[in-house]
């Protein structure tokens, strides 16, 4: 069987995709624009899908690529469209519109 440094190529690709998922999780965490954060998390779901391919779980890939890339993104975009697009991390000032 074909090997690179004593490991199958699947394992190296698994490490690569998990690194990719870690980077995209960090980008999701620091992003203030929520639509961009949702797109980053969809990219992270793509990385997890490819990692599941490398983990020899084709049935999980079929379920997860529909849920993770499709349904989660559509759901979060729907919520972002109905509510607000930007998050404000700095503490809020005095309440302006007090009843």
């Amino acid at each position, binding site marked *: 069987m074909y090997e690179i*440094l*004593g*490991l*199958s190529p*699947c*394992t*190296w690709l*698994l*490490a690569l995709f*998990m*690194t990719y*998922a*870690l980077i995209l*999780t*960090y980008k*999701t*965490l620091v992003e203030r624009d*929520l639509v961009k*954060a*949702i797109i980053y*998390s969809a990219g*992270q*779901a793509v990385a*997890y899908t490819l*990692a*599941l391919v*490398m*983990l*020899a*779980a*084709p*049935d*999980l890939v079929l*379920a*997860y690529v529909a*849920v*993770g890339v499709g*349904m*989660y993104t559509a*759901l*979060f975009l*729907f*919520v*972002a469209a*109905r*509510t*607000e697009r930007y*998050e*404000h*991390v700095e*503490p*809020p000032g005095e*309440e302006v*519109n*007090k*009843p």
Partner: protein
Amino acid sequence: MIAELVWSYIYVVTIAVIVLSLYGMATRPNLLKKLIMLSILSDTGNILAVLIGVKSGVIKPPVFPGVSFTHHPEAGTESLARFAEEAVDPLPQVLVVTAIVIGLAVLIFLSYIAMLLYRKYGTLDVRLIEQRIRSGGGR
């Protein structure tokens, strides 16, 4: 040596994603950002469960040897031993299929609650929601 290093690296990265998403859920004030980090957390838990089922060095799908659409061989001791030797553990994969769908249902429910909160208080920021609840009611 390199194989153990790479497998430890994969586990460390998975734990790091879990820690990052927990940190994001704890510190970000926006409810939608919390939901996004919660989805990442549940998916990473699923990936970790599948990853535990993989014996290091063996990555083959859990398909019983010799089974095709038309041919179903008898499950003898030696074929079972060969299956356990050369395939990943199928039990976490079976559990995770259910967990993915349940996670989707939970997230839809939480998104609905977040949208109701936005309709009542006019913001998704949990600090502002707390202020407005303390000052007595909606926007």
